[in-house]
């Protein structure tokens, strides 16, 4: 399986020039790729385009040659920098997990989610704990690609290491593709096989 960005262009404002201009990238399953680059160059926007949260103005995002289906479970799952914004504050954590249908519940233990957290509200958990839920939820059976957009930026390094170790193991076991968006070069080299600098590929 492969995820492909085919000459995509995107801008938030019609009057200004494109933020992302004519970007073509290919990601294969089993591959771990880091996208690095300065802020304001559209790394997060690229993540949203690849996972179908935004539609490109020009060009297409293709999964195995077909465009992403806007309905149904998306095989490309995005994990966001701020877990507290990705979870409905009125849900209990059990409901949060139930949103991902067919979730393999053995992942909960591996990722370090404790049974008693399931009855709590999001505000009663810390950022690191919430992020575990977001990761668990993104790892539903249909997921083939995982995009981590500054997933561990707000966490302390110990929690960061713990979370990444689980993600790497799970991605390897299922032979998923992993795209890591980060500003931390140490993290990129530690986690990924290939590193792409967005400022080098934008606009050609």
């Amino acid at each position, binding site marked *: 399986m492969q995820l492909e960005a085919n000459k995509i262009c995107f801008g938030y404002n019609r009057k200004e020039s494109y933020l992302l201009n004519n970007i073509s990238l290919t990601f294969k399953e089993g591959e771990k790729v880091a996208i690095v680059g300065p802020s304001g160059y559209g790394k997060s926007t690229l993540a949203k385009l690849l*996972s179908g949260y935004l539609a490109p103005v020009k060009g297409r995002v293709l999964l195995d040659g077909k465009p992403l289906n806007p309905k149904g479970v*998306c095989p490309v799952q995005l994990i966001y920098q701020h877990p507290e*914004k*990705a979870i409905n504050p009125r849900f209990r954590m059990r409901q949060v997990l139930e949103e991902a249908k067919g979730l393999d519940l053995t992942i909960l233990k591996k990722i370090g989610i404790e049974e008693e957290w399931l009855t709590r509200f999001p505000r009663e958990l810390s950022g690191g704990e919430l992020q575990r839920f977001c990761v668990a939820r993104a790892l539903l059976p249909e997921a083939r690609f995982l995009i981590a957009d500054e997933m561990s930026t707000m966490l302390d390094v110990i929690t960061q290491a713990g979370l990444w170790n689980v993600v790497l193991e799970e991605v390897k076991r299922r032979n998923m593709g992993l795209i890591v968006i980060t500003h931390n070069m140490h993290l990129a080299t530690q986690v990924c096989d290939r590193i792409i600098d967005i400022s080098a590929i934008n606009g050609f």
Partner: protein
Amino acid sequence: MNRRQKLLILTILITLIIVCTYLAGICISEEAIAVDFTNAKLKPSLHHLFGTDWLGRDLFARTMKGLSISITVGVVASAISAIIAVLIGIASAASSKVIDSIINWVIDLVMGVPHLILIILISFACGRGLKGLLIGIAVTHWTSLARLIRAEVLGLRTEHYIAVSRKLGKSNGFILIHHILPHMIPQFIVGLVLMFPHAILHEASVSFLGYGLSPEQPAIGIILSESMKYLSSGMWWLAFFPGLTLVSIVFLFDRLGDNLKSLIDPYSAQE
């Protein structure tokens, strides 16, 4: 005792007073407000708390019955109105731009016409009486709540967790029921309760003007308008007590809404 406990007790107390008033009005028999010329035009006393009118009817009993009707009208009309507001607010925010602008235009239109005139017209068109009045109040009071809910839904739709839910394969229906509607419940309840006083006052004023409930019903508006004729003959109590109790009930509903609002407000958790 902390602020929330005080508020909670106050809220329960107000609710109790309102419920008791309503039940008292229902339980008072027709005999209590029957015509009795031997006791006509009595001043307020222990036996007749609010005095009697020119036909000898006990004013206290009539006032309680009137309040009971007022509360019924207020609750039913506001409930219908609030439901209309939620449906229209969500429809407006969730559908296409064209429908959204049409709905906004209607909201402006309803807001632009003075409520009293609109209620009188609708009530008249529906053949006066309780039904006409209920419809009249219900179709005029939903606008501001609908706007509030529309804005809320528009804001909610851009939340990241809703986009995530969609990518996890959830349908629009699921998102509406699990993410959007529960979020609206506090707005709905507070909006509903704060609508009561308006509805009650409008009911009273339309009835006072003679376009609302029929004269046989002991509504506060009717009592007030009838007593106008007798004010000049020194029977001050005819207008004073029913007016005072009406204002009190309106005030209680208003406090109830405010209390609920600050109890539900998430920011009040941090103190």
